[in-house]
């Protein structure tokens, strides 16, 4: 019988807090580096001056209007993506669940791509809502199709098939557009944080402000859900509606990020796995905040790398998260997949 998460939590409180503290420190370090590094290379005293209202005009603009919003967006987006991934994985009891593999990201992307290429007249702030509609549609198609199966591979296959469809649609859209549109859209499709300003942050902020706390509140229902549907019902959880709400929330978090940054892959898949590995527990009350922090670290770190690695050329962060995240995930899951299937 699986040990109930409660006792694991009690015994592990101290290490978890330590982990969170460690993540916090790491995050602060990355944040500092992000603000300092770049074309006007700044030093900590410069930064201090800027915070206190001084510093050269150029430096102020660069830090306050360019780097800071970008950093804020990276942290928010990273947290939102990883929370979404954690919720999907726990609610579906499937280690391979992730918005990029379940058609959620692809659904949101198609909508945003259509809006961009077809130059649809849509209010800027309405875009995340439309993206959400796309995300939910994509996700629900996959979930409906794979509903009766616990087999991880099946779910991934269904998701891959739908994503192929949606990605092909996006390419079709692209072929209809002008050269300029194509470049813009392509950059978007890869997932990027470049040139994101406070306007983008404000767009995401309400979604984050409501979504993140709500996600953290889902910890208890997630723990109960992980015991199995029948057991959960027996414990008084309205399983179907709870799962539905959790999945909708997960999709909403992703949709908001996609609307602003494009589909950034693998943060949502990786962060929960890393969080579980490091904290050695599956209690959602610990994993959710840890994953959020790890996601923020991963994405802001990746963005820093994207900016600095080939300076002055900048490659979008989405490229790096896939290039590094993909193989990493493969490594992480290899042994797990081998043990799970086939061998009784």
């Amino acid at each position: 019988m699986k040990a109930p998460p409660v006792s694991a939590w009690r015994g592990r409180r101290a290490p978890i807090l330590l982990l969170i503290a460690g993540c916090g420190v790491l995050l602060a370090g990355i944040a500092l580096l992000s603000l300092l590094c770049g074309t006007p290379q700044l030093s900590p005293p410069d930064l201090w001056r800027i915070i206190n209202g001084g510093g050269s005009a150029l430096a102020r603009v660069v830090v306050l209007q360019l780097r800071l919003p970008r950093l804020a967006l990276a942290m928010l987006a990273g947290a939102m993506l990883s929370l979404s991934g954690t919720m999907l994985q726990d609610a579906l009891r499937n280690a391979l669940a992730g918005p990029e593999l379940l058609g959620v990201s692809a659904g949101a992307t198609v909508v945003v791509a259509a809006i961009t290429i077809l130059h649809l007249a849509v209010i800027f702030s309405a875009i995340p809502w439309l993206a959400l509609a796309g995300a939910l549609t994509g996700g629900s198609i996959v979930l409906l199709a794979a509903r009766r199966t616990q087999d991880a591979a099946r779910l991934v296959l269904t998701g891959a098939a739908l994503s192929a469809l949606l990605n092909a649609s996006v390419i079709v859209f692209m072929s209809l557009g002008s050269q300029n549109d194509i470049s813009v859209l392509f950059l978007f499709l890869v997932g990027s944080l470049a040139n994101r300003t406070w306007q983008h942050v404000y767009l995401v902020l309400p979604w984050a402000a409501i979504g993140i706390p709500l996600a953290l509140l889902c910890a208890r229902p997630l723990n109960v859900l992980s015991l199995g549907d029948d057991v959960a019902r027996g414990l008084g959880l309205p399983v179907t509606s709870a799962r539905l709400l959790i999945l909708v929330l997960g999709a909403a978090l992703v949709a908001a990020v996609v609307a602003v940054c494009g589909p950034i892959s693998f943060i949502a898949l990786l962060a929960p796995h890393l969080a579980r590995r490091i904290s050695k527990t599956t209690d959602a009350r610990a994993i959710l905040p840890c994953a959020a922090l790890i996601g923020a670290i991963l994405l802001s770190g990746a963005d820093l790398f994207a900016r600095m690695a080939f300076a002055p050329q900048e490659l979008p962060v989405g490229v790096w998260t896939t290039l590094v995240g993909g193989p990493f995930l493969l490594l992480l899951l290899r042994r797990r997949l081998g043990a799970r299937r086939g061998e009784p």
Partner: protein
Amino acid sequence: MMQRIAVRYYRPLILLSLLVLFLLVVLHVAAGSVVISPFDVIAALFNRPVAPYERIIVWDLRLPRALIALVAGAMFGLAGAILQSIMRNPLAEPEMTGATSGAVLFAVLWLSEAGRQLDQPGLLLPFVALPGGLAGGCLVYLLGGAGKSATSRLVLTGVLISAVLRSATSIILLLRQEALGAVLLWLIGSLNGRVWPHWDVLWPWAIVALPSGLACAGLANVLQLGDASATGLGLRVGWTRLSLFFIATLLTAGAVAVVGGITFLGLIAPHIARRVVGADARRLFPFSMLMGAGILLAADTITQTIAQPVTIPVGAALVLLGAPYFLFLIWRRST
């Protein structure tokens, strides 16, 4: 019910399908900005007297395109059928072998290096893309195929490696934005401008891979029963699965190299074939080939006739046609 009839009258069904394919080829050649009557097409094909310009159009322009559509479609259809058999999952498709993303990556590398001359690269493109496809497939095969529970791992490896290769492609495209326009058409999959040199790239692979795939139908049948039963029947499961995967990779790489990243064909053709003739690979594989060929020919014919003068690439047409079917398919599975 349909399955029983199809199985009973399998031979006539195949003959009928071949006839339909021939008609489709004729139709395909007939259609286009210059419409040639089908009778003239047949006459030109059989070297009867026709107007010289018609002969040129038929023999130099349209026939290679039709043949490429025929054979590439068959290759996609067979690759999809093989993959669906060995994965025991009707949603498996050739993209999963990594061959498509590998081919695209090499093609993009080549296009961005070869730079401005857009015509030359077009001809050499298949030669470049093919090794890329094979490399992608081998990568997935090596990383995901070893060991016992290969199916899950193969799926995941295929999906992840494809994603990684796609993002590598994105890097190149971002660094060389001018290549973007040329690549796009190829990414979706198109038969525009396919002439005899392209056919020359395609047919050797077809000759090798298509019969190999068909010959493996018996093995695929046994694999379908599950690893334990297959071993019990004396099959070397791991080796067989990998060989079949390799053949599917060959088929996909060859077709993608010439035609581009057409998605869906490898998913839908075997699926329809399965509903008509059932799951026995000895019937499914050939019929899936015919289905793939027919769908691609039909789709290309449609893009040639409708939507003139804007030419929609055939890959886009397949997405537009395939999407509703695919959604319907998913809906069926969920109920």
